């Protein structure tokens, strides 16, 4: 029966159908602890000197792409905003805007993906909301999540603390998510084997804790890719990258080449860029390489030169600028 069932406007109307949707699909998946009894607001107790609080919205198209879907992407995106701010993610909210006529089976697949990603991270969904809009007023499902995390006081992160000679590390190949979504959207290269890198980067952050004082900056390079992330971090010192060291998936290289997109501008959703003091770089790289999330980690360059300037040393020995992306490179990739 669920194969033919659709989301109706009444499922967001606050009446019996709303209740049914929440109980059957939400409470059954997330209804423990704070969500128990469906209060209007979650009551939380936090034993931490400081918290981090973030919010993000997700409108990716298509909803399902190789390696993930809007559901796990939303969880990972929210977890990662907390993680790279130096926090242990604890609690999440989940708001859904559903389009009238959405197949019930699609909703269930997305919610299953959310549940799996939340469980894997050890966090809890503690509050949420569902609205249904008329057909044509949204594109299937839009998700909005907020997250609360406990500050990890060992980290003292600031781009201004980056010094010449600091080392840039990345946790894996760059731009996979952008190319995977684009190939799904355009029905191009679907047999390329390329999958989105969507994942939580918190294990990478946690692994850096023993050397936290040597970590200057960390970020998951989402929209705008590595280029935008490094420009953002270059407020105190520039960066020089070595083209021969940049890690790319072969299939992503082919897709990006054909579409005329630079993988350095393409988004990742489960990678980490960290700028660290040279004396801790080797230790962090070694511990990352031992984790599934960091098995493709490598060093790609160093802090050098004047603020705001990111350059690339090319294979033939030339030097080029690595500019910020301009214009609408890839809309609706997250």
């Amino acid at each position: 029966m669920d194969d033919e069932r659709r989301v109706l406007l009444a499922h967001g109307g606050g009446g019996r159908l709303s209740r049914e949707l929440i109980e059957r699909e939400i409470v059954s998946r997330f209804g423990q602890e704070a969500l128990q009894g469906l209060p209007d607001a979650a009551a939380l107790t936090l034993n931490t000197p400081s918290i981090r609080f973030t919010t993000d919205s997700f409108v990716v198209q298509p909803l399902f792409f190789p390696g993930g879907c809007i559901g796990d992407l939303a969880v990972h995106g929210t977890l990662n905003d907390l993680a790279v701010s130096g926090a242990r993610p604890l609690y999440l909210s989940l708001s859904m805007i559903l389009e009238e006529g959405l197949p019930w089976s699609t909703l269930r697949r997305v919610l299953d993906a959310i549940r799996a990603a939340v469980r894997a991270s050890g966090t809890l969904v503690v509050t949420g909301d569902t609205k249904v809009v008329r057909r044509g007023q949204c594109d299937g499902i839009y998700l909005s999540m907020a997250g609360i995390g406990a500050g990890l006081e060992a980290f003292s992160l600031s781009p201004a603390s980056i010094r010449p000679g600091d080392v840039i590390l990345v946790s894996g190949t760059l731009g996979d998510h952008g190319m995977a979504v684009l190939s799904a959207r355009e029905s191009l290269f679907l047999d390329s084997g390329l999958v989105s890198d969507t994942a939580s980067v918190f294990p990478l952050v946690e692994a850096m804790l023993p050397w936290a004082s040597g970590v200057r900056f960390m970020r998951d390079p989402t929209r705008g890719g590595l280029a935008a992330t490094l420009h953002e971090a270059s407020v105190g010192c520039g960066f020089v990258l070595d083209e021969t060291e940049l890690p790319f998936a072969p299939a992503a290289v082919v897709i990006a080449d054909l579409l005329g997109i630079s993988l350095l501008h393409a988004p990742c959703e489960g990678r980490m860029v960290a700028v660290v003091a040279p004396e801790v770089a080797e230790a962090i790289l070694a511990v990352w390489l031992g984790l599934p999330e960091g098995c493709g980690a490598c060093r790609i360059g160093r802090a050098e030169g004047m603020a705001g300037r990111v350059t690339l040393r090319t294979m033939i020995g030339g030097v080029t600028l690595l500019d910020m992306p301009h214009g609408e490179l890839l809309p609706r990739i997250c």
Partner: protein
Amino acid sequence: MKGFSDPALAGAARRLSAAIQELAARLATQGKTVRIMEVCGTHTMAIARSGLRHLLPANLLLTSGPGCPVCVTGPGYIDAALEMADRGACIVTFGDLIRVPGSKIHLAEARARGGDIRVCYSPMEALRLAQEAPDRPVVFLAIGFETTAAPIIGMLDLALQAGVKNLFLLTAFKCVPPALTALIADPEIRIDAFLCPGHVSAIIGADAYRFVAETQRIPCVVAGFEPLDILLAIEGILTQRVSGEARVDNQYQRVVRPEGNHKIKQLMARYLIPADVDWRGIGVIPSSGLALRPEFRPYDAEAHFDLEVQPGRIHPDCQCGEVLKGKITPPECRLFRRGCHPDHPIGPCMVSSEGTCAAWFHYDPIGIPENRHG
């Protein structure tokens, strides 16, 4: 994948660079400089992206020609597309054109105001849209050199076979060889050699440049797009200059044949005829464009909407024309980084992904303050 860390490739790059230095030094002792023009936007970008320009000896200059089809398309073309959108057409375009300035606004602005403007990666998308909405005119913005004209005409051929009646091309196709003739004829431009495009040559063939080498004594080398391809082509050009020869070398034989692709040329000739067309900033060049044959007027967007592409209005300070002819480098333009910027483009050379100004803006470290530590 670490594509360029292969020691064999790095070694080949070093050997070619050394050979280029040596050949250039021999020419320098004779007081000779060599100005090489590339006439392909993909080469322009590949050169910029590799940082090659600043590794070359002082008497060897790389200059960019009119190799970007978007850059040689006038604002009146965008105006015409906008008017068709206003009149209810669905406009389908490659992404490159979306932010190219028309006389007043660009296509992205028109889309934000409600115009139905779609960006596609393949012309086939236009055919699909036309078949999905047979009552609605779908206009494909058909610009490009021979390389791009081929798949667009292939799509039109399929549309005809399928009996599609609501698909129209707004054509502004350009051909490379007549542009070379016009550049050579300009007394203000000195070109000692051409780096000829790889993709275009796959269609038209390397022999298409023989008239340049044979009648003008200007060496031509057809090259691919990897940094090594370009180094190899430069070495080939210098070898010809040192020996005083002028011929067409095809260093992209893995893709390009002397006679080109006969089948595609035949298909294109069935639909297209040479036409005198206007190149933005350069002017009208005889037989330098391709227009639909009269019998295919029902598929011509200008005929269907009964409007003719006008020249349009170009910003009075825009020097894209000078850049396209290699008379100035982008930083020598009055507007470069001073009002013209990829986010606020005044000329198409700044916004096209293959534009010369975009290449310099995005990749060239000169003109950005030098770093204090390195």
